[in-house]
């Protein structure tokens, strides 16, 4: 039995914010209780972790991760991606289907789950594709995908361009109660664009991607969701207009949820003056006004989830001229400290922040994670709020190094990551 003692337990799902102990046995939570006197613990308790002064929360969930396996193992494997996740405090991740081959059939789903089981150290939830090969032409066999274990479908990386197909995709997914995650981008409006269209792109002479490229498709996908009654989740919201559209739709009861990534509330377009390709991401880093709107969206609940869109790329893709560089940055190992800044800035309460990583994504994906309930898997993250650290990407567990946060002084980090009762990360680092 494992006992986690003296920590401040915050579990937004169960509305808990109290100093409690957690007893774990055979990979499950046995009991959550008031602290006992020293020495009065059960004799079967073989391991005690004293986390006085630390935060104890349900294992964090990142519902937007690119694991790159199968096909691009040189950027990241299921194994290394899971290690990065655990290092960042995540006990569950959902991985996008834009692998090679694409996860558009049960064999690939099975492959991912098998690999995760044998080599991954955290829970892996595959997301299947909406269209075959992500080509936007034919629907995937979603029933088969669901049976194989996908928790949602998405063509992330691109939008389904044909609106009729997107509509039918949503209706078809509805048959199996599958969530449709929408990457919203009008590829005609973005053609050739490499950063946000704004003053910085005007000054630098780089081709810009207007907010409209995201917002027109956010609107489309929400309207289609309304039409079809399908549950829809908007991925990586980055603009003021997108937040506004989601907010309005929610106020009318549309079944839409939304996420944003840490880089959309930590960086803005001005940073691209340096032409650093590690800042090239899709959707791009936006204007200061958009950053403020994203924070407001997190604050008022319009944006339910913080998900990293962890997108590893090697130097082959990044150490080139700006236009040729691939978009994407890694995020698993910096998400938590970056998000904790929001608490400092009083954008979110501690509990509110934690819910963006736990109760909310769990509910949206319909997985029994993200909360501390006796009988459920013991997925727990322990956070040290006052741990000051300078980000050193060379220490990262992810295989790639494409992060713009190197050298940033951040506060707060996951001390322990416990997955199904097993300590994967402790204060000395990864145990696996």
């Amino acid at each position: 039995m494992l006992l986690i003692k003296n920590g401040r337990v915050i579990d937004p799902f169960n509305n808990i914010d109290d100093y409690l102990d957690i007893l774990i046995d055979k990979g499950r939570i046995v009991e959550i209780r008031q602290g006992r006197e020293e020495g009065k613990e059960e004799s079967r308790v073989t391991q005690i972790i004293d986390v006085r002064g630390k935060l104890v929360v349900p294992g964090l969930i990142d519902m937007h991760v690119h694991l790159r396996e199968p096909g691009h193992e040189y950027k990241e494997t299921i194994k290394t991606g899971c290690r990065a996740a655990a290092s960042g405090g995540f006990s569950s991740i959902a991985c996008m289907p834009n692998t090679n081959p694409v996860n558009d059939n049960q064999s690939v789903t099975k492959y991912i789950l098998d690999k995760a089981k044998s080599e991954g150290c955290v829970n892996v939830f595959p997301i299947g594709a909406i269209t075959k090969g992500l080509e936007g032409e034919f629907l995937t066999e979603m029933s088969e995908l669901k049976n194989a274990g996908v928790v949602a479908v998405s063509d992330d990386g691109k939008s389904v361009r044909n609106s009729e197909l997107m509509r039918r995709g949503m209706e078809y997914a509805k048959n199996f109660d599958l969530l449709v995650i929408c990457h919203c981008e009008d590829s005609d409006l973005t053609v050739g664009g490499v950063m946000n269209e704004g003053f910085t792109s005007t000054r630098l002479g780089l081709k810009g991607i207007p907010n409209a490229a995201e917002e027109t498709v956010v609107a489309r996908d929400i309207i289609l969701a309304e039409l079809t009654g399908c549950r829809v989740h908007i991925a990586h919201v980055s603009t003021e207009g997108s937040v506004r559209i989601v907010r309005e739709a929610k106020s009318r009861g549309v079944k839409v949820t939304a996420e944003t990534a840490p880089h959309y509330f930590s960086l803005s377009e001005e940073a691209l003056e340096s032409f650093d390709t590690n800042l090239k991401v899709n959707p791009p880093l936006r204007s200061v006004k958009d950053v403020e709107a994203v924070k407001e969206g997190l604050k008022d609940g319009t944006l339910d989830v913080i998900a990293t869109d962890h997108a590893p790329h090697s130097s082959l893709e990044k150490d080139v001229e700006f236009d040729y560089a691939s978009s994407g940055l890694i995020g698993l190992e910096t998400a938590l400290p970056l998000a904790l800044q929001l608490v400092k800035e009083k954008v979110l309460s501690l509990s509110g922040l934690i819910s963006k990583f736990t109760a909310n994504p769990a509910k949206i994906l319909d997985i029994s994670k993200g909360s501390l309930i006796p009988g459920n898997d013991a997925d727990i993250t322990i956070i040290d709020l006052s741990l000051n650290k300078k980000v050193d990407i060379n220490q990262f567990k992810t295989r790639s190094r494409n992060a713009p946060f190197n050298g940033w002084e951040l506060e707060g980090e996951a001390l322990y990551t416990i997955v199904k009762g097993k300590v994967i990360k402790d204060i000395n680092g990864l145990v696996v």
Partner: protein
Amino acid sequence: MPLQNKDLLTIEQLGIDEINLILDTADSMKEISTRDIKKVPTLRGKTIINLFYEPSTRTRTSFEIAGKRLSADVVNISTSASSTVKGETLKDTGKNLQAMNPDLVVIRHSVAGAPKILADSLPASIINAGDGAHEHPTQALLDAFTIREKKGEIEGLKIAIIGDITNSRVARSNIHALNKLGAEVVIYGSFTMIPPFIERMGVKVASGMDEAIKDVDVIMMLRIQMERQSRFLFPSLREYSTVFGLNLDRLKKAKEDVLIMHPGPINRGVEISPEVADGPYALILEQVTNGVAVRMALLYLLIGR
């Protein structure tokens, strides 16, 4: 060295004193091109590599002649014939060239920021001969030199830049240079070709051709791009030249002694009519002459020691 940086990547990075030093030095250099023996030994033994990822006759030739008139050894690399076709990255190409010890590399590239990649990784001096739509500093310098030669001083002048501003590195560099030198810049073009927030760069946006050119001392016309991607930016050359082109008729609305400039190559009959291009106040060919002098000045200031 008298210039702050080992490289010339942007006008944005240059101080007013540096710009004036370059222009003054170019003045001294211009004389050399009028001699019988157009050569001085100043850069003897220095190696200059022209690394052009985009095709160019005029700029590359200008740099080549500039280097040779200063007795440097000039090598031209144009990528259709080079290892880039074999997939070598810019950084690797740079390192390979550096292994042959050049003193200076002139690079033209279609991607903004590419010269910075070389400047950061090579000890050689790097001159940006045009990077995407970002900057073309030597063009702006030779334009400023040309204006200064004709008008004596740039401060207080009013200058119009007309055309596809969004895609123009010449426009951006000129806006920086002219602002630093104290001129007033007004721009005009189709809404499809004006980038957002351009006023923040210190320019006024005119609402019509006539408004743009009246009362200005210099009109700079930009070339219209004819590539496929531009097909959404204007419907036809005919309409473009009617609405946004400069011809003798339209010129009547401008000052009598207005100067006409164009970075070249010109699309005759499109943005500029043949009569205007060949007319008495067009400085297009002088810009080319001055281009050699300005580039000689830069080569001297960067590696003349």
